[in-house]
């Protein structure tokens, strides 16, 4: 099946969220899967059930630094997004046998694990937690929303992200250290190369034929 690709570049979270919601409606109507790629300007986001006083260690200090804290309609706890983190939003209409949320999340983890293998990084799951880890360090967060079996939100993979803001939270409610591709490689990591590899992996895992990338200039 053909899959649309939209690259939003660097974009604030809410603008990208509105585009996601438009895309969800389009996918519901047309059933053509779409992958949105982007990087967000610095922001902390909380999942639907996250409590600001829970995993955000110092909300006042975060706001003083001019970083927004936004509540959003995905699963999971709190996380940080910023430049250098690749965001991939797979907007897919799930049909059987993929109408199985654990299986879908597992496949997204596989996408990241095999992508990292391409860069020579051995990654794994941590039993009982969704996301991808390098040894005990978290490198990718995964959280989704599902509306009428269309998925939205998705993967946040640290490519060359400034990891210091993660010290202000317990990412996804965990006492874990974060890492990135650049930190693991001890070298610069090309965002363009990571984007291409995540598209290749999504194509393999979900049996998709990726169409040309549409660079959206609305941001």
């Amino acid at each position: 099946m053909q899959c649309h690709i939209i690259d939003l570049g660097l974009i604030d979270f809410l603008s990208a969220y509105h585009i996601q919601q438009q895309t969800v409606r389009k996918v519901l109507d047309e059933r053509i899967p779409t992958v949105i790629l982007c990087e967000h300007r610095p922001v902390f986001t909380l999942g639907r059930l996250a409590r600001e006083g829970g995993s955000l260690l110092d909300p006042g200090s975060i706001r003083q630094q001019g970083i927004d804290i936004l509540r959003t309609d995905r699963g999971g706890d709190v996380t940080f997004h910023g430049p250098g983190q690749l965001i991939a939003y797979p907007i897919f209409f799930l049909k059987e046998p993929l109408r199985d949320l654990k299986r879908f999340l597992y496949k997204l983890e596989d996408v990241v694990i095999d992508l990292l293998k391409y860069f020579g990084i051995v990654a794994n799951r941590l039993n009982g937690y969704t996301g991808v880890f390098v040894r005990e360090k978290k490198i990718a967060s995964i959280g989704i929303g599902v509306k009428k079996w269309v998925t939205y939100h998705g993967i946040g993979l640290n490519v060359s992200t400034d990891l210091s803001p993660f010290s202000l939270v317990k990412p996804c409610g965990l006492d874990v250290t974060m890492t990135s591709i650049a930190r693991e490689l001890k070298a610069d990591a090309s965002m363009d190369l990571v984007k291409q590899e995540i598209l290749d992996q999504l194509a393999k895992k979900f049996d998709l034929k990726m169409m040309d990338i549409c660079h959206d200039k609305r941001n």
Partner: protein
Amino acid sequence: MTKEIKVPFLGDGIDKVTIAEWHYKPEDVVSQGEDFFELEADKALFNVPCEKKCILRTILVPAGQEASIGQAVAIVEDL
């Protein structure tokens, strides 16, 4: 006619969910296709749509509480 709204099957290995949010309160009319309530399972937030226009009579499991797959979480009256 009243009927129960139950937690849908979300896949193998998901036995329990948390009710994340109710979009309606008792005595509200809910239209077909509208997002009725949200469930969270693992890292997925699942919107449960209303299958048939109805009045929400009783919420049996409020937001923040757990429910099992197949458990009744609300009572509605079809319109």
